[in-house]
């Protein structure tokens, strides 16, 4: 499968203010998004995620490097025919109703009038805003704005969707709904690039990940390749065993109400702990093997930087 988006050594320095004070936000960003995958663009706040997306959309001009969107320049309107975009903290025209807003954007994609109403109805249903579709957007809650924003990103039936922090500021239920919609997009064969600083979200739904820190991509690859299946340590919660005896196998992280949480770094020691508990007539409450998570990789990457 080909690449929908390719960035090669993209650099950008902002010079805001009357007396410009240059701020280098992108220091040679390179990555590519393959057709049909969910690509997670991960980084702390201010790392350069939104600036990268703005370069891809033609909102900001890179100082150096190349960007290819569907094989074209991002400034070519034809490159955006099959592109959907949801900005971070979406602000829309407050005086328009949800339906009018979608109709306006559908017209920008030259969607025929006969087709518009049906498509808008379907999208309103997908994002579960049937009851609010006739209300002006100023009456929408943050979660509703996020959902109508997602609907506008899909109004042209795009094959590639860019979502900037789509799960930010949503409650757990709202996040799950948006996550399900994103997974539904992949099932429908669409390519998705989304940014987040919430690691669990990326880990849950992404195929491919790139980590950007201070304007540089420090780590990228398939999630399955980045995150090792190797067990890092095992957490065992036990009672009825003296803390000193447990220390022979690892660190006692906490002891509360007679229960000790033991962190066992060597996998072969785990059966020994279980044998000891059985011998002494103790009790096991939990046994959790901890494999490497994206969070570990992220923290490690940021720490190295």
């Amino acid at each position: 499968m080909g690449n929908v988006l390719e960035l090669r050594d993209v650099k950008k320095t902002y010079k805001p203010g009357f007396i410009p004070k240059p701020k280098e936000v992108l220091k040679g960003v390179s990555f590519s998004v393959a057709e049909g995958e969910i690509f997670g663009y991960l980084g702390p706040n201010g790392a350069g995620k939104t600036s990268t997306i703005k370069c891809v959309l033609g909102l900001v001009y890179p100082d150096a490097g190349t960007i290819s969107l569907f094989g074209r320049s991002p400034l070519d309107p034809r490159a955006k025919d099959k592109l959907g975009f949801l900005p971070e903290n979406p602000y829309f025209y407050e005086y328009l109703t949800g339906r009018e807003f979608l109709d306006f954007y559908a017209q920008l994609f030259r969607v025929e009038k006969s087709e518009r109403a049906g498509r808008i109805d379907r999208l309103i249903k997908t994002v579960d805003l049937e009851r609010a579709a006739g209300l002006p957007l100023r009456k929408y809650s943050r979660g509703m704005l996020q959902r109508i924003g997602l609907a506008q990103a899909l109004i042209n039936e795009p094959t590639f969707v860019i979502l900037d922090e789509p799960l930010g500021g949503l409650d757990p239920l709202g996040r799950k709904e948006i996550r399900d919609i994103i997974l539904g997009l992949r099932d429908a064969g669409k390519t998705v690039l989304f940014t987040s600083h919430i690691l669990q979200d990326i880990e849950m739904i992404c195929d491919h990940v790139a980590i950007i820190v201070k304007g540089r991509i420090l780590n990228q690859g398939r999630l399955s390749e980045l995150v090792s299946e190797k067990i890092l340590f095992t957490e065992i919660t036990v009672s009825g065993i003296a803390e000193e005896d447990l220390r022979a196998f690892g660190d006692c992280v906490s002891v509360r109400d007679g229960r000790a949480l033991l962190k066992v770094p060597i996998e072969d020691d785990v059966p020994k702990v279980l044998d000891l508990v059985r011998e002494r007539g103790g009790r096991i409450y939990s046994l959790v093997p901890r494999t490497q998570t994206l969070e570990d990789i992220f923290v490690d990457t940021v720490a190295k930087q």
Partner: protein
Amino acid sequence: MTILVIARHTFKEAVRDRILYLLLFFSALSIVLARVLAVLTVGDRVKVVKDVGLASIGFFGALMAILIGTGLVYKEIEKRTIFTLISKPIRRFEFLLGKYLGLIWTLAVMIAAMTVIYLIVVFLHTFTIEFRMVLAVLFIFLELILITAVAILFSSFSTPILSSLFALSFYLIGHFSWSLETLIKKTPPGTRRTLLRGLYAILPDLENFNIKTEVVQNLPLPAGLWLGAIGYSAVYTAFVLVLAVWIFRRRDFI
């Protein structure tokens, strides 16, 4: 097509602005008060009604163009609605020209409303309606086409307050630059005169669109006057819009 979609949306946005109706109210008040002023005048009262009415349409129309035009593009950037718009298959010049045409459309509706009020007031005073009065309004509209372009130009790179000040200065300079011509005539030939001529060529001359005297005094309107005004408005507006597009295309939307 895209330009028209944005223009229609801009029209919908602009007609929701309360400033528009406030200015329409004051212009109507001013046109009606011209009749009261005429009563207090010694001489030709009809001329006062006609002259003050046309001046009101011109002044309040310019205020509408400046106060709404200077905020149109800036608001899109400030409220970040431009992020989703530019991510659609739109070229930046289409966005800017759509905004411009949307405001021209709004002004056309407002000027039409003011003209109806004006014609009613004049009719109640004279029991006649002359085409020449409508022609004077059309000349005012030519001026507004240019002023709107200037407002959009400043709005593409500056805040509404600064843009309003710049556009208002353009309007005032444009109506007083003709006095430079008198100064040029009184200045002896030489470097100073050449410099003054250069300055006069650069500065706008909005008096090109003022045919109030001809209309009110029933003077002839030669074809050269018409063509000159249309040509001046077209060339100057095109120049200002090209400049606005050039600046807008180079902007980063941070």
